[in-house]
């Protein structure tokens, strides 16, 4: 499955596509929610590695508007619970991720994103 924590780390890597190639946009997605164990310390540690706006926007694309536009300074439990859900519990099972720059389509099938490129695209 593609969770938003993973989506936040993926960019288009087609040859020559190096700007405005992140975040990939979701298209025609089928989403499943699956509970995950809450771990506040992990989340606090992970926050600095997140591209915040990309996460908020991706959440919205998947119909979740619970995250604030700005990352709060205090990472309280209530906020972390929301972050936990958006980052780790939304699973994109089918659909695609599309590069905002070159339009390359990366398919997601049975929960697995296909980021492979053909030789001419590398």
């Amino acid at each position, binding site marked *: *499955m*593609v*969770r938003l*924590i*993973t989506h*936040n*780390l*993926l*960019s288009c*890597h087609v040859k020559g596509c*190096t700007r405005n*190639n*992140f975040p990939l946009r979701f298209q025609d997605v089928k989403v499943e929610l699956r509970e*995950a*164990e*809450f*771990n506040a310390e*992990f989340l606090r*540690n*992970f926050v*600095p*590695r*997140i*591209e915040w706006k990309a996460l908020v926007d991706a959440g919205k694309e998947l119909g979740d508007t619970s995250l604030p536009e700005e990352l709060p300074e205090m990472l309280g439990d209530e906020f972390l619970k929301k972050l936990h859900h958006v980052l*780790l519990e939304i699973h994109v099972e089918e659909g695609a991720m599309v590069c905002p720059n070159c339009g390359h389509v990366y398919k997601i099938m*049975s*929960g*697995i*994103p*296909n*980021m*492979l*490129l053909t*030789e001419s695209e590398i």
Partner: protein
Amino acid sequence: MLSLPTPDLSHLTHEDYERVYEPAANKEDTFILLDALEADVEELLEAKPRICLEIGSGSGCVSTFAAKILGPSECLYLCTDINKHAARCTHLTGRQNNVTLDPVLSSLSDAFNQRFRKCGGVDLLIFNPPYVPTADEEALNAQGDADIAGAWAGGKLGMEITNQVLNNDILSHSGRFYLVAVKQNDVPSIQERMNIEQGMPPLRHHYSDRIFLDSLPLRIRPHAADEVLDVLHLSQPFDKHLTA
């Protein structure tokens, strides 16, 4: 030291293993990697890796084991493979063992590299590569076909694929890299390159049981006789465990 059972792989079938590399006692490499991780479990727990990446996860056995010993919710377990059946098996093996792995079909870490450079990189990198020396063309074809041959065909010195990973600077500044290598890969030169090119200190420990892989079915890995497996453990400088 706590001894953990190897992951449950009972859901994988003979058919799966025709397409995906099978962790098997007579090949040893998968298990030597588990042993190396288990031997370091206390240090790894203390280091608290948050991003783990296994390149070429195959059955998903190694990442599942990592998630079991480090804690399923303590870290993100990314897994790449070029073989779509491997990605599927990795997914299933995580599930079978109650851990969440995030498999991505990708060559090496290609789809992540740009973001890794910005977000600090990988804390725990694991790679049991196609390390068998073959003709370059054979390795190239295996990469293109993305089938079972891609699990072993390593090109010149068995290093064509591994070299690409060594050239990619994706480790975080306290990152660790567990790499399986065999004698023919020229282990001292891998070590040296890591030191010179990426400021890594000499090998912290040299995990080796001197296991000989001479019982391999030739059909699968024609050049694999007389291999010696090593798990290289490379840590970045300033690692507080270095002096241990």
